[in-house]
């Protein structure tokens, strides 16, 4: 289930012709994700990073997939209002899995493995 996200995490073109496994988004400064997270220092919640990865996968595959598990997800850099991010997708190490990496300003923000129901 991937709800519409375009008002919060806006798809944008990459800096060059992107490979099919690279997707770019801008985190809207007006995003509802920042409502109360946190009032004095807005950062994107970790689950929104997962939403970014799923949104990229949806744009790549053109269909929704059922997420059943996560493995080894690390949030290493906060994302802030207005940040532009690149989501990289590659084949995972488990059946029906996809490895994702989110990068911002040349730094890794998030890394992990998404596992989906077969099919």
């Amino acid at each position, binding site marked *: *289930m991937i709800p519409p996200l375009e008002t919060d995490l806006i798809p944008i073109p990459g800096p060059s012709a992107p490979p099919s496994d690279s997707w770019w988004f801008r985190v809207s400064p007006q995003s509802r994700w920042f409502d109360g*997270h946190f009032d004095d220092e807005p950062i994107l919640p970790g689950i929104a990073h997962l939403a970014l990865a799923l949104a990229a996968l949806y744009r790549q595959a053109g269909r929704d997939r059922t997420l059943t598990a996560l493995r080894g997800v690390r949030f290493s850099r906060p994302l802030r209002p207005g940040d532009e991010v690149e989501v990289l997708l590659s084949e995972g190490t488990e059946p029906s899995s996809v490895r994702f990496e989110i990068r911002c300003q040349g730094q890794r923000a998030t890394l992990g493995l998404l596992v989906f129901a077969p099919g």
Partner: protein
Amino acid sequence: MTSAFSDPRHGLGVGLLPHSGAARLLTDVVRSGPGFVEAIGKVGAEHPLASGGRVPSFLCLELGAQAAAAMEALDRLGGAGEPARRSGYLVRVREASFIVPDLPADTPLHVTARLESAASPLAIHRISVSVEGSECLTAVIGTFSGTR
């Protein structure tokens, strides 16, 4: 372990979370003890990930992180000389299993968090979330508590 009806600190545990507004999913602490918390939360239909009155199950990772943060805050209330810390940063999901793909919005969610290990400011918690008696998520997560 104490009950919510005998321990007024429980409301304080939720109140100490840095989350507010739509970001605060945790609503009540039911029971707590050293390294353990049982709590109630809810995801509103206005949440950015809500669609058609449903929310994806992975959203409950945030609820688990907030429960763990409330537990840390309650544990710190008993300590002396501990500096004020901001709890609740989700920094790792070692593993998570989603038994169902999505859940109803605006429905009470039951969450437990147990401390597995800690090396301050990092802590590892095992969390479980259920709705109407059915478990919908289990996970092992890492949280970070930063000094304010």
